[in-house]
């Protein structure tokens, strides 16, 4: 016989707001709506989840990925049973442990030990049961003397550790884990991952919502990709990853194309136009991996500049400054300029990894050391290439493996 089903979701739709079922709820809704106090946006068109269906077998670990607002957290809430489905059917078998943020019910004035009992009671573990688990928990969370101090004196990492320690020591059949999973230092993270594996081997079903693609690949067996409330792909963890990357790139490319390169007028200068160009002076929006490209900025300064210094930075989609060049440092000297001009910066090669980028521009006056203008996102482009986008740089490398003589 096949493994029994642990979670079954059939045609789940969810919108926030009270249910449509008639009865006192509808009456209450009518009253609340009239008073202008409907719970959240109850726009019939705002569906947080649309026609979501999937099954998870006992002992499986499934990763749910999607961009912000894709409905991941809503799905976890529905699975946890705290938020009712608007339509469809959701079946969950066994004790659920929702680790959606780990501080549910923690009281700041109580000690870690007292809060442990409280968290246990919330999870349905009687006091006696918790008492026998306590030594294990105390050891796992590594709080030492802090375990008997009020939680209000804890750092946020310590609170999270407490929550995670309790969560994973209580036997549960279904674990719902939100991204806060990766708490504490690297050592604690690894310990948590090891504990997660142990739980899985004991037959626990794990639903993991994460932004970390590495985590997904490492922990999950299956991936479900959500976008705008609907499942756009599901399959193996790797298939999920691929689908997610496609999705993110597609959306970002669309955003870049829609964004016109319009003139920007600020106090010190007027930007007339910007473009990314390739080897043959042609305007491009996509740069091939490693291929040379340049950024051209046409602008007019509003006053005479004695010794202007220009800076151009390239930021990736997460806002990391990958490259930052300063004209003077690169050998461009100019004095006493005014009026309209065209500035070009040429990168003979680049090691940017696949993804979407934005260009920042700054103008400084060297004689007075004052920064005159900073302009963010004056141009954008994407870098194409094969393989997955990992890291901020793509460095070609050679690998070798030598087998050595075992000395013993």
């Amino acid at each position, binding site marked *: 016989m096949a493994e029994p089903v642990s979670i079954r979701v059939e045609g789940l739709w969810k919108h926030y707001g009270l249910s449509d079922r008639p009865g*006192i709820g509808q009456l209450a809704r009518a009253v609340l709506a009239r*008073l202008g106090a409907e*719970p959240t946006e109850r726009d019939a068109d705002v569906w947080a989840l649309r026609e979501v269906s999937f099954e998870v077998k006992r002992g499986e670990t499934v990763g749910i990925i999607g961009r912000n607002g894709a409905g991941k957290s809503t799905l976890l809430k529905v699975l946890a049973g705290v938020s009712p489905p608007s339509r469809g059917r959701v079946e969950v*078998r066994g004790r659920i442990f929702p680790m959606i943020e780990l501080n549910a*019910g923690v009281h700041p004035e109580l000690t870690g030990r007292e809060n442990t*009992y*409280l968290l246990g009671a919330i999870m349905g573990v009687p006091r006696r049961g918790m008492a026998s688990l306590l030594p294990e928990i105390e050891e796992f969370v590594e709080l030492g003397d802090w375990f008997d101090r009020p939680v209000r004196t804890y750092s946020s990492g310590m609170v999270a550790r407490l929550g995670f320690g309790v969560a994973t020591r209580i036997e549960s059949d279904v674990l719902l884990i939100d991204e806060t999973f990766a708490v504490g230092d690297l050592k604690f993270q690894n310990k948590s991952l090891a504990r997660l594996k142990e739980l899985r081997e004991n037959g626990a079903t794990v639903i993991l919502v994460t932004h970390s693609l590495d985590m997904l690949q490492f922990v999950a067996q299956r991936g479900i990709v959500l976008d705008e409330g609907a499942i756009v792909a599901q399959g193996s963890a790797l298939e999920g990853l691929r689908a997610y990357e496609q999705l993110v790139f597609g959306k970002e490319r669309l955003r870049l194309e829609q964004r016109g390169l319009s003139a920007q007028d600020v106090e010190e200068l007027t930007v007339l136009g910007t473009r990314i160009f390739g080897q043959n002076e042609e305007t491009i929006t996509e740069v091939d991996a490693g291929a040379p490209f340049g950024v051209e900025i046409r602008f007019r300064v509003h006053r005479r500049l004695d010794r202007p210094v220009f800076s151009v930075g390239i930021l990736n989609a997460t806002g990391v400054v990958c490259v930052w060049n300063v004209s003077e440092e690169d050998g461009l000297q100019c004095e006493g300029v005014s009026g309209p001009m065209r500035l070009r910066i040429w990168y003979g090669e680049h090691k940017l990894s696949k993804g979407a980028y934005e260009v920042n521009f700054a103008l400084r006056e060297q004689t007075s050391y004052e920064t005159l203008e900073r302009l963010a996102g004056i141009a954008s482009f994407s870098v194409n290439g094969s393989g997955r986008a990992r890291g901020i740089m793509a460095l070609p490398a050679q690998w070798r493996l030598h087998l050595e003589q075992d000395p013993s």
Partner: protein
Amino acid sequence: MYIHLEPAVEPWRQFLALVWAIAVRELKGRYRRSVLGIVWAVLPPVFYAALFTLLQGILHISTGDVPYVLFAYAGLVPWAFFVNAVNRCGGSVGANAGIVKKVAVPRVVFPVTAVVTALADFAVSGILLAALLIWFGVAPGLHLLWLIPMLLVTTLFALGCGLIIGALGTFLQDVLFGLPLLMQLWMLATPIMYPLNQVPASWMPLYVLNPMVGIIEGFRQVLIRETAPDMGFLGLSMAATVFVWIIGWPLFKTLSQHFADAV
């Protein structure tokens, strides 16, 4: 539709354990960083009793052969319990947002816990009341057994009101903002500061519709007059209790499904 199979916990035991755990958390946590601690639980009715006694010197409210302080305090203690219970029910869901949003515990745990913590404060106030009764030479006796059904009616009535306030207040903050004003008004419409026989006869038909009349008068009769409560008034209170539950329970049940989306 959400179906939870084999949840592996006995609902009733979990319910009681959870009420206990949250109530203990509230009581321990609330007074841990205050100098007066549990004394705060006794202070409001004591304060009001002192205030009323002061006013009585000006207004000359007659309470017959019963000392006014005793008269006022015996009414204020059950009243304070009722107000406390309803107030705490109102904020109980929001105060436990962390749990509400993450764990599927029965939602009614929160108002029930609120009433339990109010009961604890009531017990502390009760000790002072007992001391006062002994001081004024009121004899204890079997009639005190009437306190059990009296307390039961008061608790159920408070919880019924609390369910309504808690359910609506979670979605509509105005309910919680308006509650203290409503309670002040309600106190003036209840024989706490003055005895029932001072109420003009023409007001009585309307006045007795206040369910707290039967409850406060009942407590006084048992504690001070050493007799059974007036069954007519108490009957009205019980009817009102049934009424608030008929409204409050389904209202709370329905709205509580959506608490996670609202807090």
